[in-house]
Every structure is written in structure tokens, then in C-alpha cells.
């Protein structure tokens, strides 16, 4: 008797619990947004959940990008990946090759108008096999940070930039340098791109060993040699804030760190990267991907959430609160964003400068980039630290990349 009653009670309880769970579609969203950024994510999520009683999105902070990647890989292996996650383009490429993702476009149900509303450069960063596989989320671009006390008018061309750097360094007499160089792949990429070059051509043949690449390294080496630039190994934002360097090229997402370091010490602003043989603005940041392990309901619900995150109002809220960029044209044109730009001339002149969106470019979006990047990184260091000539260093990197590709197969 009592046993039966217990079973009955258990059954009722189970039904009640499962009923509740069934009523809501669970969508997990793994991200790497800490502190204030994470809070903004949580607020947007809470708003979405309130608006959609049948869906429950749970945003989970998974550490920095490296930790998030490790975590994603572990979950993919165990086939318990989240429904949504922030991803870089080269992760996306690797994931797609292994059928881990499904294209978000299939579930977004975008009208042509909505589709074209995503800023072209961001859209192109997210297309694989002709489909918008992932959706741009926290995007930033690289700009020229400068000390307005030393640089009244930011240089528009590379030549102006070089002359100005030299002048500031000469006047600074070893205490102040015109430019700060960190031997990174991204900075090398920036100068090479301005010269008209890139890492690979469209068929992924190596092109960075060409003259544009060599010239880019030589430009950096010459700047260090004639003391127009200081070779630094930490965050450039601190060097700018300390007044050691007058300019650096870096991610607009670092603006809050520049502000923290510079407050009360130097005045600063942002401008587009000066143009060389061609203009160029690298765009960075992650996108949101949908994982194949999700059920149909989850996929639909997830797409709904992604659409919500990137709608005009929210992409602008996100951008204003975090320092990233709106990802849609309607966002960039919105009143709220333009009011924000009017109050923040630095953002208006730098990352928010619409011209840069016209000539935006991005890092290679292939799985093999992770490996290639470290070889090229070594080449940049070797050349800048004079362990090899730019020609030798780049040729060595090309050799390593080809070897690694051969080893992989």
C-alpha cells in the first residue's frame, strides 16, 4: 500500500518536473565576456527570457577565449556541446570541417532586407559555403591610438605617419617615441595589407613572402633602427598612458584600458589607420555559432535569441555599453548610436568612422591559421630582433607552414 503510494507520488512529481522542463526550450550560450561585458550579456539574456516565456537562455561565462576553446573542444568530444557559443573564425572553419556546427542562417529566417542589414564586412567574415554560418557579435576594428598633446592631427598616410614618428622621437630624445611596435602577426599584417599584400591569395597559396611582406618588415625594422619607434613587449595601452609612445595601432576594444592608463596623465584619441598604397582596417572579434547537437526546437529558439541580440536596439546597446561596434547598418545609422558618437568624438573619429567599414579586412579564416600564425609570429620576431633578414625569416615561415600542412595529411 505505502509503496504504491510512494510510487504514485514519485510519478506525479516526475511528471510535474518534466512538464516544467518540457514547457521551456533550454538554450545554453557559452561566452568569454567577463566583468562589465558579462553583465551586459546577462541583462540582454534576462530581457529575452522575459519576452519569451517558452524559451530559457542560459549564458555561461567560460573563462578567457583560450579556456572557452578548450571547454568547447572537450564538450564536442563528449557530444554535449552548448547550443550557442562565441567563436573565432578559424575555430568555425575547423568546426565546420568536422560537421560540428549547423548554419545559423537556416534558422534565422532572414528577409533579404534583414540579411543585408548585417554590415558587409561582418557578413563576409561569417559566410561559409555561401551561407551565413555564424553571426557577428562582439566586433571591433584596429585603429591608430594617439597622444593628442604630441599628435595634434593624426596622420592620414603612412608617409605622414613615418615622418611624424621620426619628428616626435627626435624631439623626445629617448624619453618619448613616436610609435610603439609589438612584434605581433597582426601589426605585420596591418603594414603588409597597407602595402597591397596579404598572407594568402584566394586559393590559400602563400603570398606573404612577396615584396609587400618584406617591405612591411623593413618598415618596422627601420622605425626601430632610427628610433622612431620603441619595441615593446607589454600592452601598448600602458606605454601610451605613460607618455612613452605617442601612437600605436591596436584594437578599439582596448580603449577602456587606454583610458584607465592615461587618465590624468596624457590626452588621447583614436583615428583610422593611415593609408598606404591602399587603405585598410582590420576587423576582429568573435561571432556566435550554433552547434549541431541541438534539437530542432533548440535551434529555432537559439536563432530567435541571436536575432534578438543583433537587432537594431540591442546591437547598439551592446556597442555603447561595451566599446564594441554595432553589427548592422540600421544600428550604425540609429539615433541612439549617433547620439553616442556625438558625445564620444574619439569613437566617432576612430572605430566608428564609417569609411573604415568600406575597406575592412580580416585574419585568415582557415583552421590551419592557428599553426601558420605561430610560424609567422616567429618570423616577425626573428626579423625585428635581427636574427634573420626579412626575406629569410618569411621564407622560413613559409617552409614551416608547408611542412606542417604536409605532416597534417
Amino acid at each position, binding site marked *: 500500500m505505502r509503496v504504491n503510494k510512494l510510487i504514485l507520488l514519485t510519478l506525479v512529481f516526475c511528471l510535474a518536473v518534466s512538464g516544467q522542463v518540457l514547457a521551456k526550450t533550454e538554450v545554453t550560450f557559452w561566452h568569454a565576456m567577463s566583468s562589465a561585458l558579462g553583465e551586459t550579456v546577462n541583462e540582454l539574456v534576462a530581457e529575452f527570457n522575459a519576452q519569451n516565456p517558452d524559451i530559457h537562455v542560459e549564458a555561461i561565462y567560460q573563462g578567457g577565449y583560450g579556456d572557452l576553446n578548450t571547454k568547447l573542444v572537450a564538450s564536442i568530444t563528449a557530444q554535449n556541446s552548448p547550443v550557442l557559443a562565441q567563436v573565432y573564425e578559424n575555430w568555425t572553419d575547423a568546426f565546420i570541417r568536422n560537421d560540428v556546427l549547423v548554419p545559423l542562417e537556416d534558422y534565422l529566417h532572414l528577409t533579404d532586407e534583414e540579411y543585408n542589414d548585417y554590415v558587409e564586412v561582418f557578413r563576409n567574415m561569417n559566410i561559409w559555403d555561401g551561407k551565413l554560418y555564424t553571426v557577428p557579435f562582439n566586433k571591433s576594428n584596429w585603429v591608430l591610438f594617439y597622444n593628442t598633446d604630441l599628435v595634434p592631427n593624426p596622420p592620414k598616410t603612412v608617409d605622414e605617419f613615418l615622418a611624424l614618428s621620426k619628428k616626435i622621437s627626435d624631439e623626445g630624445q629617448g624619453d618619448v617615441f613616436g610609435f610603439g611596435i609589438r612584434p605581433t602577426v597582426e601589426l605585420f599584417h596591418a603594414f603588409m595589407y597597407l602595402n597591397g599584400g596579404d598572407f594568402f591569395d584566394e586559393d590559400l597559396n602563400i603570398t606573404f613572402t612577396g615584396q609587400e611582406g618584406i617591405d612591411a618588415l623593413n618598415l618596422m625594422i627601420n622605425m626601430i633602427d632610427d628610433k622612431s619607434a620603441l619595441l615593446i613587449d607589454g600592452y601598448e*595601452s600602458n*606605454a601610451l598612458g605613460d607618455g612613452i609612445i605617442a601612437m600605436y595601432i591596436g584594437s578599439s576594444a582596448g580603449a577602456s584600458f587606454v583610458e584607465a592608463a592615461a587618465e590624468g596623465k596624457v590626452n588621447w584619441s583614436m583615428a583610422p589607420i593611415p593609408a598606404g598604397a591602399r587603405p585598410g582596417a582590420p576587423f576582429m572579434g568573435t561571432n556566435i555559432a550554433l552547434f549541431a547537437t541541438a534539437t530542432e526546437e533548440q535551434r529555432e529558439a537559439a536563432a530567435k535569441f541571436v536575432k534578438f541580440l543583433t537587432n537594431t536596439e540591442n546591437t547598439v546597446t551592446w556597442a555603447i555599453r561595451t566599446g564594441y561596434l554595432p553589427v548592422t547598418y540600421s544600428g550604425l545609422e540609429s539615433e541612439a548610436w549617433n547620439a553616442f558618437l556625438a558625445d564620444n568624438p574619439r569613437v566617432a573619429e576612430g572605430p566608428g568612422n564609417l569609411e573604415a567599414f568600406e575597406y575592412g579586412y580580416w585574419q585568415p579564416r582557415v583552421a590551419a591559421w592557428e599553426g601558420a600564425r605561430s610560424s609567422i609570429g616567429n618570423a616577425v620576431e626573428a626579423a625585428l630582433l635581427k636574427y634573420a633578414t626579412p626575406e629569410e625569416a618569411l621564407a622560413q615561415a613559409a617552409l614551416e607552414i608547408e611542412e606542417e600542412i604536409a605532416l597534417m595529411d
Partner: protein
Amino acid sequence: MQAEPTMWQYRFRNHFKMGILYLVLTIGAFIMLMPFLWMLSTSLKAPNEITMRTIKWIPETFRWENYRTAWNAAPFATYFSNSFVIAITCTIIEVMLSSLAAYAFAKFDFFGKNVLFVLFLGTMMIPGEVMLIPNYLTMVKFGWIDTYYSLIIPWTVSVFSIFLLRQFFMSIPHELYEAAILDGCGRFKYLIKVMLPLSKPALVTVMLFKFIGSWNAFLWVLIMTNTPKMRTVPVGLTYFVSDVGTQYNLLMAASAFAMAPIVVLFLLLQKQFIQGIARSGLKG
């Protein structure tokens, strides 16, 4: 022929020696402490005071509010209580299991002893990075993701502790063991009554190390948990670091309160390191 040193010479030599000793220790201690002191100093600074250019040890104003800001930046109250639960449970179970295993290795002559010991030691030689994924799969299979089980049970045995305790157990004279067993003292009773009390410094060391290891574990915790409810203090420290910059003052403040419990534990335990000395009488 050497003359006997006079009392005065003897005392002078002694003072001189002690002087050198203190000097060496003080310089050494200062070098050891410098990064820590810098950390404390940075934790009280304003962001624009954190500069590489000049060395500034004393902040202009002591910004104690950095500690509150850092505390509120992540759910540290939850993280701390989880860290305490996990570290304490791990430490207690680990000392028990390791003592048993170390006792077997140290005092029993048994079949397969050397092979087993080398097998145990071998597990230390594999980088944890290759075991992470297989262990994650096991945890998923057990349904232990996001539970204390996954954070505690795999860490309740450490070969390090077994090995350290074995070394200490082995240096307790074997005749004592044989005599006790002949007198009808049970093996387990001997462990509890004789071995453990005599190995107090080693036990304290093992406990301290386990507590620290458990307190500082990061990647494992991050991989095995999905909710802030189950996470620990080191996860909170990542909140201040990003790929474009680091909030150094807040990070240092958080690091300071993150390590405080270990400092307290060390101060409580450090007297115990020197209390195993009543041993000399035992040597026959």
C-alpha cells in the same frame, strides 16, 4: 697548534656568524617577497598609477575600495564557499587514503610492491593535459559534471602524498614495527598509535600541499563545471584579464584576498613542522 679560543673570541665569532645568517635570510626573504609586496601595492593603486616607467611602491592614496570592487566583480562569496568545501574535503580524505597506501608501501613486504610503486609514480610523469579529455568523458559518463563529485573525488589520492609519507614512514625504525606486531599490536592500531603521531611534520606538509593544490586548481574546475554555483576562486581571477588589457589593480586585489586563506593556514600550521622532534628517545 691552535690555541683555545677565549670566551670573548668565541662570543664574537658566534655573533658574527649569527649576523651573517640574519643578513642572508633577510636579503633572501626580501627577494622572495618583492613580487608579493608589489602585488599589494598595485592592489591599492588607481589604474593610471600602474606604470612601468617609474617604480612607485606607495600609492598616492590607498584605494581600499579596489578590494570591494574586485569582490563584487565576480560571485566571490559563492566561489569562496565552494573552494573551502572542496579543499577541506579533499584534504581530509586524501590524508586518510594516502596514509593507508603509504603505510603499505613503507612497512609491508608484499607481492608486486616495487612494480606497484613504480606504477603509482608513473602517473606523475604524464602531463595532465592529455588526461583532461579522457577524464572529462568519464565525468560525463558518470553524470558528475557540475557536481562536487567531479571536483573532489579524482583529487582525493595523490601519489605525491603517498610518496612523501612513505619516505617518512620508512625512516621510523623497522624494529619498532616488528616488536609491536610481535606484542600483538594490530597493523592498523600501529599506524594510528605510532606511525601517524611520529610523522606529524610530514602529515602537516601533505595537508598543506593538498589544500593549496585544491585551492588553486583552475582548468579542471572550469572544464568540469558549467554554472557559477559550482565554481571556485581561481575562476574569479580570470574576470580581470582580457586579450586587450588587464585591470591590474583589481586583479591584484582579488589575488590578495584569494591567497589570504592559505597564508592563514600556513601560519597556523607552521609551528607543527617543528613538533615532531620528541623522536630521539625512540631510537634504541
